């Protein structure tokens, strides 16, 4: 474990809602913990913050107290059953989704100050909102989640394009989620990768796939983390693979 150096900040983003960002974030975090890392998850989906609900916890303090109170992000961090720590956000507060630029900067600065973790995962909101772009910009790696729906593909592409054209970002990692088989995942990835090469001029990195699995719905119902409840499932294996690839990214 290396907690002395700066944490590796990774955002999980998509463009479209409901493709599995939050599911990927929590399960990847739990997997990385199993792989021996110290992990912090920040719920940055200010429009639909729901990691707390997914994990069945009811935190006293959250991001709102940082933005509108005078707490530091550190003060609202809580441990979770997945073994990772969490910065919860509050959902349903309209002002949160449209945070002032200055407030976003404050949160970003605080995130950069946090020490003692190997990785920080940011679960971002949907859409090409300024907040989402800013958190993606802060992260040194952007994981873009896609599924087999066409709209998820075009929205993911829009996200990549905007991050590239507005901020010059050229490095993105794709996870194909909720897919019937491995080959499909690769094909979906190849599709968006081809378009990126052709129209934007750079390739996309493939982190891997997460299969469609009933285990997801089952564990959601119980507010548990799928890879922890079903450690021998196919998706647990998928996440192990993705976790290793993320750690390789960090080294390079």
């Amino acid at each position: 474990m290396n907690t002395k150096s700066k944490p590796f900040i990774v955002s999980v983003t998509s463009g479209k809602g409901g493709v599995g960002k939050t599911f990927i974030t929590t399960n990847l975090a739990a997997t990385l913990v199993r792989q021996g890392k110290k992990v912090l998850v920040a719920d940055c989906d200010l429009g639909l913050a729901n990691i707390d609900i997914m994990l069945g916890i009811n935190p006293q303090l959250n991001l709102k107290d940082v933005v509108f109170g005078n707490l530091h992000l550190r003060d609202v961090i809580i441990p979770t059953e997945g073994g990772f720590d969490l910065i919860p956000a509050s959902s349903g507060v309209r002002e949160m989704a449209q945070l002032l630029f200055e407030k976003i900067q404050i949160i970003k600065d605080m995130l950069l100050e946090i020490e003692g973790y190997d990785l920080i995962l940011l679960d971002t909101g949907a859409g090409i909102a300024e907040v989402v772009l800013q958190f993606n910009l802060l992260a040194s790696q952007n994981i873009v989640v896609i599924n087999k729906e066409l709209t998820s593909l075009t929205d993911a592409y829009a996200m990549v394009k905007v991050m590239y054209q507005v901020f010059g970002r050229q490095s993105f990692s794709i996870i194909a989620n909720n897919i019937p088989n491995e080959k499909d995942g690769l094909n979906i990835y190849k599709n968006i990768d081809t378009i990126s090469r052709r129209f934007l001029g750079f390739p996309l990195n493939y982190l891997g796939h997460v299969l469609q699995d009933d285990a997801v719905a089952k564990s959601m119902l119980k507010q548990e983390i799928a890879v922890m409840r079903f450690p021998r499932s196919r998706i647990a294996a998928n996440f192990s693979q993705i976790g290793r690839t993320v750690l390789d990214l960090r080294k390079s």
Partner: protein
Amino acid sequence: MKPLKNNVQSLPRVQLTAASHKPFQNIMKKVKPNGGKLLSKKDQPEIFFILTADLPPEELSKLLQAKKGVTVNLTDNLLKRLLKLEKDYHYLRALSLTDELTGLYNKRFFNKQLKIEITRTRRTGQPFCLMFIDLDNFKSVNDTLGHTKGDEFLVNLCRLFCQKIRPTDFACRYGGDEFIIIMPATYLVDGISIAQRWHDLIKQVASQMELDVSSSIGIDEFDISCTLKAEEFLDKVDKELYKAKNNGKNKVSYPGGSLHAHEAEEKFVTPAEKDALYKGSATIKQKRKQLSTKG
């Protein structure tokens, strides 16, 4: 399109006859030893006219040396010719489309072109972008270092504008330190990256002149579904600029703050890109079908 060459500027101004004007005669003596009378090949006396209002002698001298005037043969119908010149001059001034200091297009041109672009978008379906640039801190340059320094900065900046602008875009000086760039056939996402480049460029020019000037930029796209009138659209872009100013200046603001997913796709993914993604997706579906019928 490059800004118009400053034809209007180089046009001679109001006429003064050489003979009666004392400072003029003195200058002429310096420039041409025979005192204002130029001799043509046929030894016909010609009079060199500078068309100017009350210019100070130094300026007049400059004009003379640059030979910016008209030579009139005495056998011409002088009066007629001068009258016509004056008429042309006023006509051209009224039509003037460029800004005097910077040579960029002016507000009058902008207002016309904006309407043209809206019509074009409605006809072709291709969106265009409008970018509103306002310099931060420029007033304090004028106040502390003087207007000459301020003007010098503007001229340098606009020279760069003319060099770097895409040949199809129009750069206009809208007010003192306000500029507008019209970008025909441009999607918002491309507009934003161009705005970012202008923003950086302005910063560069300022730092080269050791000035603490930056820019706030608002940008928006006019697409075929937009029903706004020219002034209303301009207002919308102005609001975006206001957002940039209000969020700490020195930045580009665009209507992305509240975009929803499908809107984002519509705004940022061009038809060609979408088409390619759809085709790729269709072949995946085909493969999936083949796989399931085989297995």
